[in-house]
């Protein structure tokens, strides 16, 4: 794949995404939102043995990386998982043709390891 524009890499901050993902608590928070999206801080906090402030800090880093998007619903602030930055990283190295082989190998791994794909 040719990078046609020097703009690519300037708009999306991949560093922030990788940094945000390089932490088990933050991945746990994303897993929580993947299982059930649109949750409040209080809700997310109840899943973790951590202070409210600690959870807020992690959510802030996820939000700065664009992996979490917040929206207001009445008095509540809801957190949503935004998968687009991960998709952009995916699309940078995996094109339409290699995707098939890549997902076939991923499926094989899930199959052999007894997980659901």
């Amino acid at each position, binding site marked *: *794949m040719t990078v046609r*524009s020097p703009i690519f890499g*300037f708009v999306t901050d991949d560093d922030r995404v990788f940094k945000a993902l390089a932490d088990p608590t933050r991945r746990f928070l994303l897993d929580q939102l993947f299982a059930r*999206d649109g949750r409040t801080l209080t809700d997310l906090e109840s899943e973790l043995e951590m202070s409210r402030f600690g959870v807020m800090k992690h959510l802030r880093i996820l939000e700065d990386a664009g992996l979490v998007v917040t929206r207001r619903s009445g008095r509540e602030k809801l957190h949503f998982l935004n998968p*687009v930055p991960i*998709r*952009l990283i995916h*699309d940078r190295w995996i094109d339409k043709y290699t995707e098939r082989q890549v997902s076939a190998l991923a499926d094989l791994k899930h199959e052999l390891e007894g997980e659901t794909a």
Partner: protein
Amino acid sequence: MTTSTGTAVTTQVYRVYIKATSQAIWDAITKPEWTERYGYGGLSQYDLRPGGAYRAFASEAMKKAGAEMGFPTPDVVVDGEVIEADPPRKLVQTWRMLMDPDAAAEGFTRLTYEIVEGKGGVTKLTVAHEVEGAPKDTGAGGGWSWVLSDLKSLLETGSPMDPGNPLKEG
């Protein structure tokens, strides 16, 4: 996902930052000459006023791919109605996937596009899809990440990610 709590409404939120003007993004969403160039590549037709119709038509490539997999593709693959059109900032509409009877049975969902221009020519596009009871992995709300990634590629580089995609013409 089958297990869920009591509430029936699930909102999916997708956000992407694109180096383009809000008008360019608005056009890419609402004008057929743009919608055929990224994502699933069908022509979209909008009557941009409250109550106006929305239709996305199957491309020839889409029909061919459907036929190869052994199912007929309808001419109109997605339909809906415009609820609010505030160019180039906000578009609210209903949305129903008609690709197959199962998807059509999920009914209308609500889709909101929000476009906010930021600093340095970078514009924030947020797509919120309220999929009331519609399962995540069937008709509604499946491919937004890929579609938005492709849209970003088209507006920033002048071409979609993969012009050779068999689901796209040309």
